[in-house]
């Protein structure tokens, strides 16, 4: 990400500077600063209640910041929503549409509120999200997935330079998540800046180019996603027919630590499909092949090896314990 | 799509037109109240008296009742009074009867009735009748007596006689006026009774003044063949407990029934 100053300036689509928000006496957002550039997928990672949604609502002028500045394509969002929001397509939380209107009528509603959007553009976005068949049905008869698609369609309607998606994978099945990922990448490749919030590290890892990590209303770090876990041990799960012997052998290996899983360490869903006698180790992933050979050499049948990303909470724990990625 | 597009514009247009129309109405309405008569299409009203439709085609009693609370029916739990009872009894005897109006007012005195008869709409109603039922005088003689403690002045025979003479002249005016308004109607006047015939101090005095009044009325009415006086003093004198209502002044249902019976018997 070493680009010249001149280029950087041109590419910044969304800029958030020293954003602060107080509600009542409580500072919900204490210090949030980051920039999103054209063509990148920017992850906004933080646990529930960290201030993600509040920040997103400030990005689209639903909430006024107490202090700080948000600009989109150089226009101040709060002072000049008429200019700045023209470049933004957003889904805040769930894509709530007028359920008593058809999908098409919903899109028409939004189209009328922005200049230069005609029926052809509506047809275009409907085709993009693949909803041509059901678009004239009432929204109340849509499934959650279809509502998501319609939400994306309305966000695309304005030909945005910045796309804001708040927890976009919520309620989607694995296939849907995969489709969405491809779709978002496609948008970024076309030069759009995509801002994605999530509380799942794994998701951000798979989807994003850069990431900002937020907790308790503060951005802890902004960096490339690859750098996020560099130099950090990861969890590897071993499955063998003879777990006791494997455990003993693993214990002797250099750079391998057996760990007792505790709550919040590993995403529970990653453990769900596993047989009972699995062994969790914390180790550098480069060592996996070597350790595997050692196990085989000792005559143990390795049934499975699985790399697991630590949860965000675990990451925070490590970041605060021994120097973060700052 | 086209159809939907036009629906909203039609509604919006209707909305705009409605608003313009209503705004006009609002401005006219406000002007009309603040500056009466300045709005076009308004004009000064002209008083006019209508033709009185008199329907003589059917042989029936067309009744207008006028007078005081007795005619109103005060004291009758059923609210019918002697007027409605009369109508009902006539109907029971297969004689057609219709009550046009009951114009009686509680507490009315004879002198008040004289002015009341000047009112246009009373005349309108009277003209249509062929039978006028009338009670008056009770309030002239005994006003206040039914509710307040009897004062010595009210027990004074001379004072009462004076009052009776005054109100008799009013009664004469009343009867004359009714006759002026309606030349042919039968006027039935229900005479007075002494409501205090069971009250020791008032029994003699009351009866005496009531007799005096009734006598004068009867004398006057004798001159007109189409006037009929229904005596009630004899009816009530010894039945006062049976016929009087809880207020010790008006008849009760039974009392009214007795009066109505007499009226029906006396009618031609």
């Amino acid at each position, binding site marked *: 990400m070493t680009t010249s100053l001149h280029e950087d300036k041109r590419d910044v689509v969304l800029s958030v500077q020293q954003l602060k928000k107080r509600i009542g006496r409580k500072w919900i957002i204490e210090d949030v600063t980051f920039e999103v550039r054209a063509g990148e997928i920017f992850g906004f990672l933080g646990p529930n209640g960290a201030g993600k949604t509040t920040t997103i609502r400030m990005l689209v002028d639903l909430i006024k910041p107490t202090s700080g500045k948000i600009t989109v394509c150089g226009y101040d969002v709060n002072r000049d*929503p008429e200019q700045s929001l023209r470049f933004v397509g957003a889904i805040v939380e769930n894509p709530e549409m007028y359920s008593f209107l058809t999908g098409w009528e919903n899109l028409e509603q939004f189209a009328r509120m922005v200049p230069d959007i005609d029926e052809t553009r509506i047809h275009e976005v409907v085709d993009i999200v693949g909803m041509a068949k059901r678009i004239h049905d009432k929204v109340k008869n849509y499934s959650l997935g279809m509502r998501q698609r319609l939400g994306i369609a309305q966000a695309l309607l304005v030909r945005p330079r910045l796309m804001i998606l708040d927890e976009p994978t919520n309620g989607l099945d694995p296939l849907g998540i995969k489709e969405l990922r491809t779709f978002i990448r496609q948008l970024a490749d076309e030069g759009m800046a995509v801002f994605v919030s999530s509380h799942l590290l794994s998701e951000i890892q798979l989807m994003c180019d850069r990431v900002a990590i937020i907790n308790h209303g503060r951005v802890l770090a902004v960096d490339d996603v690859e750098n996020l876990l560099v130099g950090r041990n990861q969890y590897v799960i071993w499955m063998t027919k003879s777990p006791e012997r494997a455990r003993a052998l693993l214990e002797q290996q250099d750079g391998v630590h057996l760990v007792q899983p505790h709550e919040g360490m590993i995403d529970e869903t990653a453990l769900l499909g596993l047989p009972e006698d699995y062994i969790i180790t914390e180790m550098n992933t480069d060592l996996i092949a070597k350790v595997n050979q050692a196990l085989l050499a000792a005559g143990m049948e390795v049934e499975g090896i699985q790399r697991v990303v630590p949860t965000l909470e675990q990451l925070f724990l490590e970041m605060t314990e021994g120097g973060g990625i700052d | 799509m086209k159809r939907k597009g036009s629906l*909203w514009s039609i509604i919006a247009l209707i909305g705009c037109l409605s608003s313009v129309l209503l*705004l006009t109405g609002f401005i006219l*309405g406000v002007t009309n109240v603040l500056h009466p*008569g300045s709005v076009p*299409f308004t*004009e000064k009203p002209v008083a006019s*008296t209508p033709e009185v439709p008199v329907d003589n085609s059917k042989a029936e009693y067309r009744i207008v009742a006028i007078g005081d609370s007795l005619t109103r029916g005060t004291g009758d739990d059923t609210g019918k009074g002697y007027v409605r009872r009369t109508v009902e009894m006539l109907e029971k005897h297969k004689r057609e009867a219709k009550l046009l109006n009951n114009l009686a007012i509680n507490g009315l005195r004879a002198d008040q009735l004289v002015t009341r008869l000047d009112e246009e709409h009373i005349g309108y109603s009277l003209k249509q009748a062929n039978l006028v039922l009338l009670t008056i005088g009770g309030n002239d003689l005994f006003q206040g007596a039914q509710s307040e403690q009897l004062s010595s002045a009210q027990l004074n025979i001379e004072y009462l006689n004076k009052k009776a003479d005054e109100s008799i002249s009013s009664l004469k005016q009343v009867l004359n006026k009714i006759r002026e308004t309606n030349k042919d109607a039968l006027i039935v006047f229900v005479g007075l009774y002494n409501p205090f015939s069971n009250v020791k101090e008032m029994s003699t005095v009351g009866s005496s003044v009531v007799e005096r009044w009734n006598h004068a009325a009867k004398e006057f009415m004798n001159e007109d063949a189409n006037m009929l006086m229904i005596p009630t003093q004899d009816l009530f004198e010894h039945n006062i407990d049976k016929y009087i209502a809880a207020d010790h002044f008006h008849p009760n249902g039974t009392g009214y029934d007795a009066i109505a019976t007499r009226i029906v018997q006396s009618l031609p």
Partner: protein
Amino acid sequence: MLALIHNETLKVLKKKRFYVILLILVVLIPVFTYAQMKIAQNSREKFDQDWRREITQQIADYQNTLGSDRIPEEWKTMRRIMIQQLQYYLDHDVNPNEPNGVTFTRTFMDNAVTLFIPLLIMAIASDIVSSERSTGTIKMLLTRPVRRWKILMSKWIVLMLFSGIIVLATALLSYLISGAVFGYGGWSFPLFSGFNLSGSDVHVESVHMMPSWLYLLMQCGLIWFSSLVVAALSFMVSVLVRSTAASIVTLMAVLIAGSILYNMASSWPTAKYLFMINLNLTSYLAGSPPPVEGMTLGFSLIVLAVWGVIALLIAFRVFTKQDMLN
């Protein structure tokens, strides 16, 4: 702006609330028509269609209540005024209750102004902002490149348009439905206006005669003004309260309290500054006594206007500044 009005009109129409209102009218008006027909039949039997005798009897009945000590003085004042007015109608040989569709409409509108029409207006007004918030569509609406006051203004304009339509539709439907029973004539039938009240005396110097159609037009115009004030207040509540049901209940309670207060207001003169007590503008046209002695049309108009303007100011102020937290 026109596009925004287009949007809002469509939303109101598609939500079907407006049609429900029309349906309510179509169902209820025949009920009143039937009741009125029974009354008319009754008087026809008793008075052989001789309205003069009927009025004469009415006067006599009123006069009788004047003597009673148990009747409150305010009622007696009202009765005295009515007697004098009825007398005036008799003297000028004009039947105030000429049985026809126009008379029915006039009476119906007179009775509808304080409660019925406000309720209909409320059904649309209380929903117009709060429903966007309770369904979450407000997020879609406010993240457009349009300033918030414009969005609210479009909603208010649409509400005004529908208020006008509701008032006229009520008059029109009641004419059409009752006309089927009472006949459609009576447009040019004369009516009196301009009775001046001082205490229980009626001054007739400024009384003038006008055709029924003009009277009806004035009446609807005055009702329209009351309706706009009710609309403005409902609008404000709709902005302040997130739930449509809560905002309807709030207003219903206020209106019903108002109609109860109306009859007691004479003993509490300060009540004349409440908007509910002033809604009955048509009473000034007919010359019926106001709920508090000394109230005039000018006074009521000012009180209503102040309430309405303040409600709108609050609505706009809150809506444009408010943080949309959920």
